[in-house]
């Protein structure tokens, strides 16, 4: 073991926290390294000096102040988004309602089929739609016919415009 590797083990060695195998390795190194032996002794001394600091006791009012802080807390603190999470009861009732809605929807009778023959025939006497169009036979005329037709039409319309 090198002196550098000792750096990561020296404190655990002083504390007695090393495993048996690691401890044996350190012991072996220390047997041949005076510098590390001195450092171990010095770290041990530092450790013992730290033990000299006394332990202080909290003041008499400490517990009372903690109790007061705790008493001032609301009974149950909920997070910002807690309202988004439904309670188990609400979730259960909502699930039941959903299932019931789907079930009732599936049981609904389909709308009655309407036969074409059942449809009423509307006969309008107010407006004669068919007679307002030109007869279909007119569509078979050539463009020239159309031009002559349009002339004829314009001739027919002229007197109306007058």
């Amino acid at each position: 073991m090198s002196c550098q590797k000792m750096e990561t083990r020296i404190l655990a060695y002083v504390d007695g926290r090393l495993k048996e195998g690691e401890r044996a390795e350190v012991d072996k190194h220390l047997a041949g390294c005076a510098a590390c032996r001195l450092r171990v002794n010095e770290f041990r001394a530092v450790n013992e000096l730290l033990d000299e600091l006394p332990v202080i006791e909290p003041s008499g009012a400490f517990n009372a102040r903690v109790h007061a802080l705790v008493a001032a807390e609301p009974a149950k603190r909920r997070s910002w988004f807690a309202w988004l999470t439904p309670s188990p009861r609400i979730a259960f009732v909502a699930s039941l309602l959903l299932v019931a809605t789907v079930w009732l929807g599936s049981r609904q009778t389909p709308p009655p089929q309407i036969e074409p023959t059942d449809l009423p025939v509307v006969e309008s006497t107010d407006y004669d739609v068919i007679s307002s169009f030109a007869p279909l036979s007119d569509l078979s005329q050539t463009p020239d016919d159309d031009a002559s037709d349009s002339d004829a039409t314009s001739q027919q319309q002229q007197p109306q415009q007058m």
Partner: protein
Amino acid sequence: MTRSDVQLMLDVKAGDQQSFELLLQRYRTPLVNFLYRMVRSREQAEDLAQEVFLRVYRAREDYEPSAKFTTWLFRIATNLALNSLRDHRYQKLEISMDAPIVADAEGGDERMMEVADEHPDIEQHLVEEARKKMIRHAIEKLPEKQRAAVLLHKYQELDYSEISKILRCSESALKSLLFRAYETLRVELAPLVARAAK
């Protein structure tokens, strides 16, 4: 039979206030001492320790025993202490060495000891106080993270894995941190160390 910390915390979660009281009794002194050595003010240390307990109480609903209770507890305490030190970095108290102030239980917040004239062994007492003051100063001079590591390792006797989780570093980084801290202490306390190491 003594209930474990985790069991007590689970009982607190279930609404048992008495278990919270037991945790308070169990950890109030270690927490106040740790925080006192971190922030160097007894009053501030108590305020922070109370805040730690309040946070533990507030977190009871969400508590899951995924780590050791002490790891969680001292992580809260360490974070509060480091934040407090950051906030008060520029408000360091400068108290005159001439001010005759009564010391607290650990020998005083940087203040002169007022020793009764009728003290039977006044010289010995002063030597001991000077020694403690030197040790306290050496710890205080450590960088904050090194100080936290030494306090958790030495006084709370937490293992390396716990401390590394509290300080959010690897175990090897923690060992290196502790080594550097002890090196600094060795130098700062050289007169005392030399005598003790002989």
